[in-house]
Each structure stands twice: as structure tokens, then as C-alpha cells.
């Protein structure tokens, strides 16, 4: 049997297994599952906007910019250590010689495992199947109700809903905390992470809101992991660190690098340049900004937290130059995201994370589907290892669990794209082609039988004819996504929570954070 035939057979077997696992009464198996894709290629199919030469130019300029103009690092102790490592301080700017930047790049781990609280959800990047994992949207302070579509402030109880949906979505490997209201704003990240880590066995992303907060977030992670040594061995969280564009780093983010390094918690080195605002208006300039800032974080990690995995995370924004509004999904920003991925992944060899979902529209509508479909395809094909932003809308300020279900469906399709089939006698059906008769067909050949369950089968997308569609009350993919969302919330709420002792300890950390961080608040 050829490789693809074996894969097809495996696909058939695993589908049968899922059907066996379906609940009695003909209900659907849980979690919902797409038919597995066909063969995985040894090399990921690749789409590139830029030639290798142009990638080379960007690479060279990013390193040169850091050497000649440098960055501002607002952390005295870190500046001292970076100087000892060879950085040059000119005024308030710290310049990194090319040798230091190249050394940092060479020292970066070329693979990272983002562990789940349950090992079943561990993710190794780059993924062995040459595709990607997805991350839910972070930072949203608005929530779009699944049932009614109504918009309201996101509250702490919504974290469990987001977690339940994420737990059931196969493509989502990383769950991020939103911005929760109804708790003290300065410790909202700590409240959010405590709720999230109790509600998901998957990998959790941390986003500190203040310098003091990182310590508490990591303490919560350590408790959930079973102690600091266990967290070091199995990082069940990773942490975003961001530049303050252009070319500056706040003390909070530098401190986060140091603290994550102590526990070997992987770092998402994130740059969020805005074309025409915090970065040049033309995309190559924006990407140069992102690259220089991400390299700076790689250098800082190399010196301050050696051995800690760094994931390049360019998040590219446009600016509506009529109004000054930031845009996540302008066509320029979409193209910029793909080029940034190409540069960081193929120019610098870094594991790469960017938005794979998202839209500038406030609602789950046609625009939101079109923008994320374009974005996911080009960054996925450009090589991104993590596609972030599942469920996010309105330039990452709102979250919709129904949109997250649809994003998972797009993710499944995209993973299918990335598993391009082999071209051999088996996939050509060479024998059948040479013997097909006049007026014949391929419906019942052994070859078709072998592959008939390997095609992608949508869960939310509809393939009804007009009559069935009308009989079903004009049900669309959105309605189906809402049903899936409802089921996931029912089936995956509080999935494998930590033990009671750990939960009590996490609660006491949150209380301690409130007491300490809110002390002396204006």
C-alpha cells in the first residue's frame, strides 16, 4: 500500500473509532471532529510575497538598525547586563552589535513544547505534521452572546465559557485570557488567568497588565503545574512580552523576560507596529520595525534568560489615515502579517506566531468571515506556527464564542490545505485512469472506496440543497456554529479542573495580588 493509501486507511479507521465513541441515540461524538486530512508532506507548502533576496535585505537591515540606532530599555539592571554582554549604550539607546544579535539567534531553541495541564494537549512546535496550532483571542473587553448576538462587557464568568468552547475545538491548542470587568482593573489579568487555568486542561497564555503582576501569574501557573520544578519541566503557560513601538521596552516587559526565564516559561516576543503611526506607513518599514523589536527581545532573552524559548510574534496593524483608527484586517495589514511571518520564520529561523483570525468589524458578519479567511490562508501558507485570535472581532477588542467555532472550522480547512497530497500512481489512480471505459465512472472503484472518507467534512458549513435549506428554516453556518457552541459549553465546562487544594492556593494568590497591587491605588 502506498503512503497516501495507508493514510487514507488510517483516516477511515480513526473515523470509525470516533463513530464508535458517539453517544447513544445517534447524537454526535464529542468533541466535534473533522474528517482527518490526507497525507502530510515532508515540507510545508509555502506561499511567499517576497523573494529570498528581499528577505535577505530585511534581515540585514533589522540587524543593522539594532547595531546603529538601537533601542531604549527602561530597566537599569537589564541594561547593565546587556552592556556586559557587548551591547553599547549611546545616550539612552542600547545598540546591539551584529555578533550579539546573531549569537542570540543561534542560541534560540529551534523547537518548543507548549504543555497542557493535561499532557494530552501538549503541542510541539514546529508541529510534526507541518501545520499550526491556534490560540483564542486575548484582551477582548467586549463579549458577544452566543445565543442572542448581543454585545456586552466581558465578565469573569465568561472566562469559563471561553474555556469550555476552546476545550472542545480541536485546532485550538492555546487558550488566552480576555480582559474581565467586574474585578479590579489592575489585577484583571490575575483574576482572568486564575479562572482560566481552572477551566481548561490546555496550554494557557499569560498577558501581564503590570510589572508586579507577572510574579502572581507565574505563581498561579506553578501551583497548577504542581510546583515550580514541574512548571520548569512542563511549561503549561507561556507569556507575551511586548515592545513599546517604536524601539522601546518598558520595565514591565523586560522584567517579564527575566521572571519567565527563571522558570523557563516560553516567551512570545511581540511587536505591534501600526503603519503610519508607530511605524512607517509602508509595509516593508513596518515589518522592519517588527523584526528589529523581536530581535531585541531575542537578544534580551539570550542575555537575561538564556535557554528560554522565544516565539517571534509580529502583530501587524494598519492605520485608517482618514480617521486615525487602528486596523487589524486592512489588506495592507494582512499582507504585512504574511511578510512578517515569512521574514521571522524563513529569514531568522524562529518559531512564529501571528494573528490568523480577526476582523475590524464589530460583529459576526460577512466581513468578519472574509477578512479572517484571507488572513488565515496567507499567514498559514507563509509558515506561521501559531495562528492567534480565534473568536476575536473589532480589532481584537471583542470576543465571540460562535466566531471561535467558525475559526476552528477555517483552521481545519487550512490544515487540510497544508497537507498537500503526494503525486504518485496511487493518487493519480493511474491504473483506473488507464482502464476507464467510455461512459464509465469512478464511483465504486476500490480506489474511491479507499479514499471516500478522507475528504474534508465541514461541521458548521452547510451543503444543503435549496429544499432542505428551506425545510431547515434557512439554517446557515452561523446557526450551526451556534449549536456547536452550545454543545461545547455543555460538554466541556470545567474540564479536568485542578485539585481542590490547588484551587484554594490559586484563590489565595489572587487575594494576595489584590491586597498588594491595589494598595495605595489612586
Amino acid at each position, binding site marked *: 500500500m502506498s503512503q497516501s493509501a495507508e493514510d487514507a486507511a488510517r483516516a477511515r479507521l480513526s473515523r470509525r473509532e470516533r463513530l464508535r465513541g458517539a453517544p447513544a441515540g445517534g447524537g454526535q461524538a464529542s468533541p466535534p471532529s473533522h474528517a482527518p486530512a490526507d497525507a502530510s508532506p515532508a515540507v510545508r507548502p509555502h506561499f511567499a510575497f517576497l523573494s529570498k533576496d528581499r528577505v535577505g535585505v530585511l534581515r540585514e537591515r533589522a540587524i543593522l538598525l539594532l547595531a546603529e540606532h538601537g533601542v531604549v530599555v527602561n530597566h537599569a539592571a537589564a541594561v547593565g547586563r546587556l552592556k556586559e554582554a557587548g551591547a553599547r549604550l549611546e545616550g539612552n539607546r542600547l545598540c546591539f552589535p551584529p555578533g550579539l544579535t546573531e549569537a542570540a539567534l543561534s542560541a534560540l531553541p529551534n523547537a518548543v513544547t507548549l504543555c497542557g495541564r493535561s499532557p494530552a494537549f501538549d503541542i510541539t512546535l514546529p508541529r510534526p505534521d507541518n501545520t499550526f496550532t491556534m490560540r483564542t483571542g486575548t*484582551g477582548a473587553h467586549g463579549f458577544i452572546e452566543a445565543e442572542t448576538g448581543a454585545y456586552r462587557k466581558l465578565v469573569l464568568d465568561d472566562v469559563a465559557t471561553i474555556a469550555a468552547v476552546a476545550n472542545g475545538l480541536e485546532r485550538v491548542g492555546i487558550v488566552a485570557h480576555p480582559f474581565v*470587568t467586574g474585578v479590579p*482593573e*489592575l489585577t484583571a489579568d490575575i483574576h482572568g488567568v486564575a479562572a482560566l487555568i481552572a477551566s481548561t486542561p490546555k496550554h494557557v497564555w499569560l498577558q501581564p*497588565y*503590570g510589572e508586579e503582576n507577572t510574579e502572581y501569574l507565574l505563581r498561579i501557573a506553578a501551583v497548577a503545574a504542581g510546583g515550580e520544578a514541574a512548571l520548569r519541566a512542563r511549561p503549561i503557560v507561556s507569556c507575551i512580552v511586548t515592545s513599546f513601538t517604536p524601539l522601546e521596552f518598558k520595565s514591565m516587559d523586560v522584567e517579564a523576560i527575566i521572571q519567565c526565564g527563571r522558570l523557563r516559561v516560553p516567551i512570545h516576543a511581540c511587536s505591534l507596529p*501600526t503603519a503610519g503611526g508607530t511605524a512607517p506607513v509602508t509595509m516593508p518599514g513596518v515589518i522592519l520595525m517588527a523584526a528589529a523589536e523581536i530581535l531585541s527581545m531575542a537578544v534580551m532573552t539570550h542575555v537575561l534568560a538564556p535557554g528560554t524559548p522565544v516565539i517571534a510574534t509580529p502583530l501587524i496593524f494598519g492605520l485608517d*489615515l482618514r480617521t486615525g483608527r487602528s486596523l487589524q484586517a486592512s489588506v495592507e495589514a494582512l499582507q504585512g502579517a504574511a511578510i512578517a511571518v515569512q521574514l521571522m520564520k524563513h529569514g531568522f529561523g524562529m518559531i512564529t506566531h501571528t494573528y490568523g483570525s480577526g476582523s475590524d468589524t464589530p460583529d459576526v458578519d460577512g466581513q468578519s468571515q472574509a477578512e479572517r479567511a484571507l488572513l488565515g490562508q496567507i499567514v498559514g501558507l507563509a509558515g506561521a506556527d501559531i495562528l492567534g485570535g480565534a473568536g476575536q472581532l473589532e480589532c481584537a*477588542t471583542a470576543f465571540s464564542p460562535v466566531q471561535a467555532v467558525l475559526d476552528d472550522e477555517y483552521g481545519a480547512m487550512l490544515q487540510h490545505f497544508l497537507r498537500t497530497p503526494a503525486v504518485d500512481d496511487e493518487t493519480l489512480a493511474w491504473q483506473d485512469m488507464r482502464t476507464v471505459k467510455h461512459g464509465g465512472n469512478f464511483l465504486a472503484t476500490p480506489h474511491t472506496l479507499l479514499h471516500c472518507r478522507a475528504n474534508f467534512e465541514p461541521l458548521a458549513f452547510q451543503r444543503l440543497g435549496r429544499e432542505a435549506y428551506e425545510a431547515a428554516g434557512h439554517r446557515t453556518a452561523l446557526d450551526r456554529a451556534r449549536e456547536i457552541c452550545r454543545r461545547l459549553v455543555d460538554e466541556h465546562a470545567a474540564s479536568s479542573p485542578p485539585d481542590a487544594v490547588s484551587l484554594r492556593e490559586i484563590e489565595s494568590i489572587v487575594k494576595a495580588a489584590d491586597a498588594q497591587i491595589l494598595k495605595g491605588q489612586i
Partner: protein
Amino acid sequence: MSNELEERLDAIFQAVRDFAQDRVAELVRHELALGTDAETVINDALIAAMEEVGDEFAAGRLFVPEMLMAANAMKAGLEVLRPSLAGHAIRPVGKLVIGSVYRDMHDIGKNLVAMIMEGAGFEVVDLGINVLPDDFVAAVRAHRPDLVGLSALLTTTLPSMRQTVEALRRAGFNGGILVGGAPVNQAFASAIGATGYAPDAPAAVALARRLMQEGRAAPLG
């Protein structure tokens, strides 16, 4: 006004519309040499041009960089006129104190609004980023603005916005307080007692102009 003078003022007007800083300066210099008084140049050419630019910006026909370039061209003309204006203050459309609220280090949106407001003829006092409520109050007492603009990019700094509005009202500031930024909306603005919310820079200018016209912007009594 003679036809010749009108034509020359039209040329200055057009140079502002063309964002031509050097040409504006040159034409204004020429106008002064011909003996035209500074106030005529300001009112009939420079301010008139910026009013039209402001209207086109608010209508979405001009882009942010174009608005700013026009403002720079107008300023180039004002610089030439400055020595001739000794003792004659240029009357701004209104005065605005603006800043990013306490704990918010982001300034691009605030800068954008400040520049646009300046371009629209407002006198702007920019307090920068991370501004304490008490510092807003002190600035209001020192500068006696018609309006105060508060900016926040982060949801975590929204409480500072509320505290600043409260501090300003406690201090007796009855003028317009404009709020804006990614996490801000009309409901939040209303809830904290701000006078108005603007979702973007053109809307901020339109709101500020409206408040000035309605007389709802009033300095500290």
C-alpha cells in the same frame, strides 16, 4: 477689498490647501511687504483655508497626514506674521488641555488628536502621557482651557479616566471633557460624566467645534 488683494489672498489660501509651507511663507512675506495688515492675512487666507480643510477632513475627504500638512503650512504663514502681531493676540477657536490618563503610556492617539485640533485652530496644551488627575486639575487652573481631552488605550487605565473626570468636576471645571481611545465608548463616557466621546480624530474635532458653538465649553469659573 481690491481684486488684486483678493487674488493674492486666494493664492495664500490655495497654498495652504496645497500643503506648500515654503510657498505660504513666501506669499505671506510678500503680502506684508505690500502693506496688507496681518489680521486680514490670517482671517481671510490662513484661517479660511483651515476651516475648509477642517470641513473636508470631518467629511472624510481629506486624510490625517493631509490635514496635518495643511496645518503646518498655516503655521509657516503665522510664523512670518508673528513679529507683526506684537500686541495683537491671535484668537484661537478654543483652548484644549489634553493628555493620556494616569498609567497609560500610549500617546499616538492623543498626539493625533492634539495635532488635528491644533490644525483646526485650537490652542492645545499637551500634558503628555501618564498624567495624574491632580496634574490635569493643575493644568486647568493654569491654562483655563475651554475643553479637556482625556485619552486611554488600555482598558486597565479606564479607572484613571473616571478619576480624572471626577477630580476636574470637584475642582469646579464646568467645561467640556472629551474622552477617547480604543476601550472607550459613549456608554462609558456617559457613565463617568464626560461631556462627550469621539471614536476618532475627525469626530473629536467635530465634537469640539460643536461644543464651542453651543457654548458648552466653559473655562474654570
